[in-house]
């Protein structure tokens, strides 16, 4: 057999074998094309669907957070204030009685301040239930005394209640404990409901990503095959797919979170636009506090985005492993 003098021999070494002539000028094209192309993996409709999922998750998490915040503020207020209610009695001068009770309360241990509410204020409190009718003044409206407690050394409620009862039988002490526990029950069930919604959204997202992974693997079958031929591990192949799903998760997550944020910012205006009037926005404020997210609220939305993105990525990884294990090349 005859050898071409241009072709190197073993003595020249591997380097030389690959490079008999080393050109000076070279166009280094270091930028590498992704092995799995984004367009074969994550279409626009997938981005839309995952964005909607993230939007719903952020909306739920944000709402539950706001409700919890305002409920905490409520129970806090309520805890530091108790009222004494004096039922209407035609035989006695009620204002006189009111000041006597106030005087009694002022001298009790653990009471910081006492404020008998004027009759107008009491009727104002009833207005939402009875309407602002002019004849409200004629009704036997019970009178109230607001007591501000010393939070550092609160009084024993039972002692206070019994002392009051002994001296003034018509006066009833209301420490709002019932309200407090009711508010807690309501917020707790709202939080549980929110959690259920989050779990549903999470499961739906996982399901969507599982089927998207399956179709991405199917449309990249030949590429996966070639990767196996050149010695790629399943880990490497999974990473090629994961990348796209992670970026899908992050992009959709940000879109969804931004949407939810806009809702939180503009919700009061929306309500007014829909014809609810000022009353509605006041009611929302009563339920959701100021309806404005604070820093921990933003962080919560950030966490939702991170969880969605991680869910997309890990679901894909797991899906790719499962599919690869079920086939041989």
């Amino acid at each position, binding site marked *: *057999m005859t050898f071409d003098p241009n072709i190197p021999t073993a003595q020249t070494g591997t380097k030389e074998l690959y*490079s008999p002539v080393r050109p000076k000028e*070279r166009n280094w094209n270091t930028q590498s094309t992704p*092995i799995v192309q984004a367009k074969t993996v994550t279409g626009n409709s997938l981005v839309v669907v995952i964005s909607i999922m993230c939007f719903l998750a952020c909306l739920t998490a944000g709402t539950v957070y706001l409700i919890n915040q305002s409920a905490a503020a409520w129970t806090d207020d309520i805890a530091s204030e108790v009222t004494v209610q004096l039922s209407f009695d035609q035989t006695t001068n009620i204002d006189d009685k009111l000041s006597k009770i106030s005087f009694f309360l002022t001298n009790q241990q653990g009471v910081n301040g006492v404020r008998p509410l004027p009759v107008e204020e009491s009727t104002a409190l009833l207005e939402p239930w009875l309407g602002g009718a002019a004849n409200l003044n004629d009704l036997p409206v019970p009178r109230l005394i607001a007591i501000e407690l010393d939070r550092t050394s609160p009084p024993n409620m039972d002692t206070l209640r019994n002392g009051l009862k002994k001296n003034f039988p018509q006066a009833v002490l209301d420490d709002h404990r019932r309200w407090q526990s009711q508010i807690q029950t309501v917020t707790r069930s709202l939080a549980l409901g929110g959690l259920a919604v989050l779990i549903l959204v999470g499961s739906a997202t996982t399901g969507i990503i599982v089927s998207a992974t399956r179709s991405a693997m199917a449309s990249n079958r030949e590429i996966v095959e070639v990767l196996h*031929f050149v*010695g*790629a*591990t399943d880990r490497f192949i999974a990473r090629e797919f994961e990348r796209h799903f992670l970026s899908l998760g992050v992009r959709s997550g940000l879109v969804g979170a931004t949407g939810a944020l806009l809702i939180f910012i503009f919700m009061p205006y929306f309500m007014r636009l829909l014809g609810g009037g000022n009353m509605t926005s006041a009611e929302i404020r009563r339920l959701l506090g100021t309806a404005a997210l604070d820093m921990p609220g933003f962080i919560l939305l950030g966490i939702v985005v991170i969880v969605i993105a991680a869910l997309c990525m890990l679901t894909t990884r797991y899906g790719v492993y499962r599919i*690869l294990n079920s086939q041989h090349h």
Partner: protein
Amino acid sequence: MIRLENVALRYGRGPEILRDVNFHLRPGSLHFLTGPSGAGKTSLLRLLFMSIQPTRGLIHLFGQNVTRITPSRRADLRRRIGIVFQDFRLLNHLSTWENVALPLRVTGKKTQDYQEDVTDLLQWVGLGERMYALSPVLSGGEKQRAAIARAVIGKPELLLADEPTGNVDPQMARRLLRLFIELNRLGTSVIIATHDHQLMQQFQAPRLELHDGRIHQVG
């Protein structure tokens, strides 16, 4: 290096393509694998590449039993094997350069570490001008050379080539075969499946001949 014991192969419920195949190849050997079309040359190479499993018998590679192998061990072993497919199997959306670099890329090496090697090898197989062309625009012979370059870029211990000179002119065929011979001199074991009698005459090397599902060693 390679040892087959009583290997038999059939696809599904079809006839036995291979039966009682026994042979042993030492490290650093170079063999031609011949036989009529449909004799099972590609099938035998696929067995050695662990793409399919034998119906019966044992296959040993690099001193390890690979008859039934886990995917992760197979990926490890495949990094020590270069393969040239009869139908090339290049990735259409990658450039020639990227296709050839693929075996190195999947090991997680940095591009800078193999940039020169890939470019030099492409020059050597005559694809210096076609480095950044996507593989669908390459001619049959160019694809074949890219496939060969991809098989040898990782300096494999074993090279399996299925009809590597089927689409090139005799001069390029000789050039490519010299590449294999050079690799072989550097220690790579080589198996070349081919019909090309002229080539086999030019390069005297022992042959494995497939007939009726059996191997006959010649030379």
